């Protein structure tokens, strides 16, 4: 009893001192709770389906942020990882009868391999060259997919993949928990030593190399990590949609990922997640105006960029919080002095 009480009190203190002090953390906490409790209030299959896909794409957008936002390796072909994993998962599941909990990690390993294959030629490139080269990989693969319809099913793709779980509610919980868990892991990675090195590579690669760090290894690591998380998203997508088709490799999907992430706010992990959770359901709810929905989507993105070029989440965060000039810890905008070092804010 005493032990449980101790951990309970510890968790409570941690919650009060680390979560409740910042509005952005409260928002994230409320978001997590409400996402997990949503099925208690409504089990509308259409809504659940939208949220399942939103969860999957949130993982995908966050994994893009890990590579392109934090490491600065502008990847315009992120659909490659998604598509490779979706096809691998589909083929493993159909041909070898593997259950989802085996096929999805194996599919993600396929995406990691793709990350290695893409990463090695891309190590020598930077900036726009890198963006354009990465853009070309999914197009090359798409050509191959069409050229060998025996294995890949050509334009129709692979269909008849097993369901992720027996019910839609199960799918929802699996994707939600995975999204929150993987998002948390990615956020922790960016906060770790490795994450700081990745961040430094983005700022000044030469300086990092001069500090005795093998930047090549870290860039490859970023490609593989990002590929792994994107691959899990791809595998989940294949099992939820029960098909893996050429649409998972399209240029449009790569662009979509970039739009979500930049709209939500790069270099933050939670930004892309927020971007997907705003834009993807919005696109679905605009379905009653089928003709103008993509137009409205593009216009919203354009206008948002005009007023907040950093993205939505950092813009909102800077409105309600400010950084302590001395110890760089974030504080509520209302405070006069820093909550840790008591230095005067502003």
């Amino acid at each position: 009893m005493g032990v449980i009480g101790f951990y309970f009190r510890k968790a409570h203190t941690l919650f009060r001192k680390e979560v409740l002090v910042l509005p952005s953390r409260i928002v994230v906490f409320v978001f997590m709770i409400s996402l997990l409790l949503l099925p208690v209030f409504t089990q509308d299959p259409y809504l659940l389906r939208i949220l399942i896909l939103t969860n999957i794409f949130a993982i995908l957008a966050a994994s893009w942020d890990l590579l392109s936002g934090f490491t600065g390796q502008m990847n315009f072909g992120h659909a490659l990882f998604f598509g490779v994993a979706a096809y691998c998962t589909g083929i493993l599941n159909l041909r070898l009868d593997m259950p989802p909990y085996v096929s999805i990690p194996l599919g993600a390993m396929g995406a990691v391999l793709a990350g290695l294959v893409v990463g090695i030629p891309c190590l020598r490139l930077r900036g726009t060259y890198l963006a354009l080269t990465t853009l070309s990989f999914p197009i090359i693969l798409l050509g191959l997919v069409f050229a060998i319809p025996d294995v890949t099913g050509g334009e129709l793709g692979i269909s008849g993949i097993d369901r992720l779980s027996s019910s839609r509610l199960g799918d929802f919980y699996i994707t939600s928990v995975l999204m929150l868990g993987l998002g948390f892991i990615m956020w922790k990675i960016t906060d770790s030593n490795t994450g700081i090195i990745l961040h430094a590579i983005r700022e000044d690669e030469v300086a990092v190399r001069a500090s005795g760090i093998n930047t090549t290894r870290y860039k490859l690591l970023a490609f593989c990590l990002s590929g792994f998380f994107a691959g899990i998203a791809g595998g989940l997508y294949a099992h939820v949609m029960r098909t893996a088709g050429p649409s998972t490799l399209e240029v449009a999907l790569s662009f979509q990922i970039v739009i979500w992430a930049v709209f939500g706010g790069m270099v933050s992990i939670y930004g892309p997640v927020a971007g997907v959770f705003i834009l993807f359901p919005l696109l679905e709810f605009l379905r009653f105006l089928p003709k103008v929905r993509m137009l409205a989507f593009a216009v919203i993105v354009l206008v948002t960029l005009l007023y907040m070029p950093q993205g939505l989440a950092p813009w909102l965060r800077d409105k309600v919080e400010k950084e302590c000039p001395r110890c760089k810890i974030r504080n509520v905008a209302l405070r006069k002095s820093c909550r840790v070092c008591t230095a005067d804010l502003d």
Partner: protein
Amino acid sequence: MIQNIIINGLINGSVYALLAIGFSLVFGVARIVNIAHTAFYMLAAYFIYIGFHYFGMSPYVAMPISIMAVGLLAILCYKIFIKPIREHEAAVLIATIALAMVIQESLLIGFGGHYLGVPPLVSGYATIVGVKVTNQHILALVVALLSLLGVRFFLMKTRLGLALRATAQDREVANLMGMNESMVAMLTMGISVMLAALSGAIVVPLFVLDPHMWMHPLTMMLAIVVLGGLGSIKGSFVGAYILAFAEVLVVFLIPMGAYLKGSVALSIMILVLLIRPEGLFGVAFEEER
């Protein structure tokens, strides 16, 4: 088949060269990666279609008007959407992608996904070394080559061309020498999009129009500029013909080649980048790569 390969290779190559040179110019001068470049090319083609079918204009009138209109529209878009966020490289990329989507979706709403066409300007065919070639193809080739010559003349012999090249070499120094950098950037945007519109006008009687026709030229154009070296005009020119011939050869000689044409072009690009990362005629941007 040989003559098909040569004619199609030359025409595609010239069109790609016009597109890639425009893209290269605006990247070199203003550091804008304009994904919407080929969307403007498509828009020009549609404007000609509108002028021809709805207003009964002769194509000779519709073409210059639509090229000017697209150029002005591009300058307007640049002023409103791109200029305020030019410092944020990623944001500019997204803005141009969104712009391309706006154009594509507007056309989809206006015309649906149907395939449309404009009749050829000239009919009949000529016989060259025992091979029948339609006059329209010859006209397209001649116009494309003349426009390429015109671009070279403009860049090398006029004062504005000099300003463009100077800004591409070094923005800050060009600014110090009294060139209005933001003005040059705006004009470059207009000129490059007008080149795209011109290539749209050239292909309009040869190709069918549909609202997704900008995707394939986009990938080809990106492959070409990377192959030739970003910002290098000569590189774009040579790269365009190399990749256009590669594309046409693949389509004609390999079974299922139509699916693989983009793959082959892009694989060539990646191979070149592996062997020579700065591209065929890579220029100054050593530190930016």
